[in-house]
């Protein structure tokens, strides 16, 4: 069979039913403040890592909640755990702990992120 080099693009939808949201559940059980993020972006604005690499804790949190694990796996290790994000969060999300728990969840069941 001739191959013409065409491919079918993978859909871009977030497939909510089939996505694995284990990490979100794992974090929610242990850090309930994970629930109350309002996506203001303070954590990302103040983040040293985010100012130099493609790392946005705000974005990662919502990706975890949606079960978009590939992007999370790739990025969650970049955090240096300095905790500045926790200081500025107006909702009192323990963001540092969210990162720790996310790594734990990935290590346990979603292929090691570290």
């Amino acid at each position, binding site marked *: 069979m001739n191959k013409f080099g065409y491919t079918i693009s993978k859909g871009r939808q977030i497939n909510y039913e089939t996505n694995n949201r284990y990490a979100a559940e794992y974090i929610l059980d242990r850090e309930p403040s994970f629930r109350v993020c*309002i*996506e*203001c*972006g*303070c*954590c*990302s*604005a*103040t*983040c040293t890592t*985010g*100012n130099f690499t493609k790392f*946005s804790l*705000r*974005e990662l949190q919502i990706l975890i909640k949606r079960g978009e694990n590939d992007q999370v796996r790739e990025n969650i290790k970049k955090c240096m755990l300095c905790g500045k994000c926790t200081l*500025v*969060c*107006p*909702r*009192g999300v323990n963001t540092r702990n969210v990162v720790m728990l996310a790594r734990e969840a990935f290590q346990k069941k979603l292929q090691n992120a570290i």
Partner: protein
Amino acid sequence: MSKHVVIIGGGVAGMEAAGQLSKFGYKVSLVEKEKTTGGHLNEWFKLFPDRRDSNEIKAYLENFISDKGINIITGTSVEKLAGYKNGLSIFTDGGQILDADAVVMATGFDLFKSSRKEEYGYGIYDNVITSADLEGMFRKGKISMLNGESPKTVGLVHCVGSRDEKVGNLYCSKLCCVTAVKQAIEIREYLPESKVFCFYMDMRMGGAYYEELYREAQEEWGVNFIRGKVSEVSESINDKLIIKAEDTLTGRPLKMELDMLVLMAGMEMSKGGKTIADASGLNTGDNRFFSPVDNHFGSNRSNLRGVFYAGTCTMPMNITETISHARAVVSDVVDFLNNHK
């Protein structure tokens, strides 16, 4: 002898309630801690959404309470209420005791002290001001930085002291969004060469013609809206303000140099109201405002017999809502004095 109602607080709510109650033939006293009545109207220039001059509202209310025999006592703070069986005693800071058949608390709100959000640099950097400071500039007719020059770039920060667990205020002050939109338009009017940026988390345009004003700001005045809360402010070597936020809709951190930053200060329970609440046993909520007995049917009634609420001492309200709430308290006071006293 006609019954005596004492109203504590001579702002919009207190003035409106005083005027309305005196129409029913009661003897009314209005106690105000400042030297003049008018409350926060004295700080504001033009009001959202129709840009009406606040002096117009003030003149209306002043006229409404004059020539009605209302006893206006200014420069006097109330410290405590006591005795709820046959009447109430009101203790003032001057040692005076007023007797009343009913009391209306109209102690209003205090603007959030923006210096508490230290990371925004109010009181540290010269050209970080508050929404109230900006109103003062509008009134004077000139927006200027400390060096006297006009700013070319101005940022407006929404939610300063609101929706912020770090300062203990979980609630939305509700009016700051539309104030920011109004002030952004006004800055563009005064300074047509300027660029204006609003930093918001959510645009809460839940009032008549607020959304339209938001659209006008975009369409006719070119105001820029950036979705992200400002996390910190610093000053550059050439006296510019450097702000950091995440531009959440592009998902990237954003840095910007501005000439001036305006902080949209939220509303808090007034100190005066809190003092009376603590001394007299009036219930307050988690948000520290007075807590009425029922959110739907008793928003003007307190847990103490003969004591009622009007206006922003119960929650953030705009002037229209404050006037409505002050008119509503009259119905509860009249019912109490006629049927339950």
